[in-house]
């Protein structure tokens, strides 16, 4: 019994980790006033970029670490594209996010054929291993606290929060609100890319189509559930991670619980949470409003 609980606990942490990273990305983006539907695509970009880098470097842990960095960078690049679209080109943020998700998932699938010459999944590459996985799990919590500190204790954080509430006030203070959005959304992409890299070379050692499986969207629900705060979103991500872990823990234990229905569990949980709380929380005032 204790064994089962410990397994479930560890599994919960592992399953929460990518959602935490993406949710933290969502928090910083939305606090600056940009709704990031593209988190899902940024995770896919991070996961795929990490695998490709590790594949080409191919030197054990060096390749894996390079992969991690390239994964973060890939997410950041996609984040930068959304940032440009949402600020300079004033594209509707939802529409841009949908487009980015199509590009990233399609691009990764295309890349699998181009680079690995096989559709569906990449070849196995060097992953970060168990130690690397554990380190990234721990790092998620560190990043959460760091983001909290950044948003609530530093001048930069104050300015980002002000931008998400009223960009005109930031402009009146002689600052450029678009700059804060650019940086925040790019950072958001980097965090989502890190979450994606955890999926591909942290937990596993390959990329497969659809491996992000809506975690970027669940992260958005976690942002709302966590009331747009780094620590709240982290807590919410752990709740969703728990449901995902439960799904694995329960699978096959009870004949009457079919695997496919269990797979729906995290999404149903996100729906229930969304239904239960959103009427009572308040988003940043300028969230989703182009400046």
């Amino acid at each position: 019994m204790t064994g089962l609980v410990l397994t479930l606990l560890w599994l919960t942490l592992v399953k929460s980790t990518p959602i935490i990273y993406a949710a933290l990305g969502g928090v910083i983006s939305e606090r600056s006033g940009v709704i990031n539907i593209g988190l899902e695509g940024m995770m896919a970009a991070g996961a795929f970029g990490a695998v490709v880098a590790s594949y080409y470097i191919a030197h054990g842990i060096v390749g894996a670490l390079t992969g991690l960095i390239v994964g973060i960078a890939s997410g950041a690049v996609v984040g930068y594209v959304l940032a440009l679209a949402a600020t300079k080109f004033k594209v509707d943020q939802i529409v841009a996010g949908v487009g980015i998700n199509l590009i990233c998932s399609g691009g990764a699938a295309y890349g699998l054929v181009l680079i690995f010459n096989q559709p569906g999944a990449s070849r196995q590459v060097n992953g970060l291993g168990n130690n690397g996985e554990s380190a990234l799990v721990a790092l998620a919590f560190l990043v959460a606290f760091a983001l909290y500190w950044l948003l609530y204790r530093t001048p930069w954080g104050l300015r980002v929060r002000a931008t998400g509430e009223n960009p005109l006030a930031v402009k009146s203070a002689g600052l450029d609100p678009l700059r804060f959005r650019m940086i925040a959304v790019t950072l958001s992409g980097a965090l989502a890319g890190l979450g994606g890299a955890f999926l591909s070379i942290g937990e596993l050692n390959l990329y497969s189509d659809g491996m992000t499986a809506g975690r970027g969207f669940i992260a958005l629900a976690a942002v709302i559930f966590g009331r747009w705060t780094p620590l709240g979103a982290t807590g919410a991500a752990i709740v969703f991670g728990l449901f995902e872990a439960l799904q694995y823990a329960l699978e096959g234990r009870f004949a009457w619980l079919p695997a496919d229905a269990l797979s729906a569990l995290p999404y149903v949980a996100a729906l229930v949470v969304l239904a239960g709380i959103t009427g009572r929380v308040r988003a940043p005032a300028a969230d989703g409003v182009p400046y």
Partner: protein
Amino acid sequence: MTPALQLRGIRKRFPGIVAVDDVDLELYAGEIHALVGENGAGKSTLAAIAFGELRPDAGSVSATGSVGLVHQHFELVGRLRVWQNVLLGREPRDGWRIDVGAARKRVASLAAANNLAIEPDAFVDELPIGIQQRVELLRELEREPAVLLLDEPTSALAPAEIDAFFATVVALAQRGTAVLIVTHKLQEVISYSARVSVMRHGKIVAAMPTKETSVDEIARAMVGGALPQIAAREQTTQQPCLAVHDLRAGAAEGGVSGIDLETRSGEIVGIAGVEGNGQTALADAIAGMIPYRGSVAFAGQRNLAVIPQDRHLEGLVLNFSVVENAVLGRQHRPGIQRGALLDYARARSDARTIVERFDVRAPSVDVKVRTLSGGNQQKLVVGRALIDRPRFVLAYNPTRGVDVGATALVQSRLVEARNGGAAILLISFDLDEILSLADRILVMYRGKIAGSFDRANVDRAAIGRLMAGSQ
């Protein structure tokens, strides 16, 4: 003496209009300069250019020091604290962090130095409008500007708050700041400014020392001729129309508690008061837009029309045409709705009627109302409210932000509706409008009726005192 701020040959055009046309303006240290003009005359555009927010198409701006601007609609972050708003972008640091203690101290001492009572840790959205303006003012003062621009600074303030506000501004000028006040309140111009410049159609049409001019002369310069007259009031027979009893609605701050009032057909009841004293809750409750306790009762059939306070947000669909907007709120009326269909031919003829009767200047009834000027948009909103000859009209700031011509037209149509037997509840933050239109005046303060006056025995000073909360 070199001017603290000098504008030369400023020109700015927007699609379809020259907003500022070859304007020269000089502001001197220690002097309060008033810039007056109608809505749309180009004052705010000129202020934005002087501040550096807009780039002029031609001309030059030179200043001896920094320029600060207090906006008409405050640009504050409601969910941040006072000190965070005041010091945004100039936060005192302690390593990587904000030095919160130093920040609080700086704001507190700045407030004390300018005689402004303010709590640095308060959240801005929990403060009354008058205090919010102090926050905006403090933010500009913190930067010790050589030139301070104030865009319609007193539009949301009570008479007592206005006096306090000008005391601060006068003290500031005495310490050597050049101040420009953009306003349409001529009494303030006469009382506080040293020089006045009048803008019309993008040009400065008159500039003179204030002590050599009068309210009348400035007003004539603003409109470029005689002031338009409004329709004459006629004798009416009055019968009860809509009665409000013990009305309680809205939040504790800005709501109403225990309002009683009665309106009669053929009568305009004016609600005087400073913004934020429950007027919005009263209007929304009567219109059925928010839940309320107490009663709102019609004598006879319910038949009301609303002129909402914010035409952009509440009254119009800006991307709809004049035709489509002409039936907004009327879409279920028999003759407009036919089964599941909307009779667009009828909508078009109604739109034409409104355009003609209310002098809405639009290139055609098929243009989007977004492209119309504020005055024409407002005339459309008012025309739509009056076209069905409602028994009761709720008019909330019906002439806010529109030019003198449009104001006279809207006010005339309201008086004519009254003459024709409609009951009108006029809520306005403009006391002059209430005094000129209302048969009876009720003063609202903190969600209650603080006093009432008949047209025969109005006492402007007494109303002003009630508006400010003193007896």
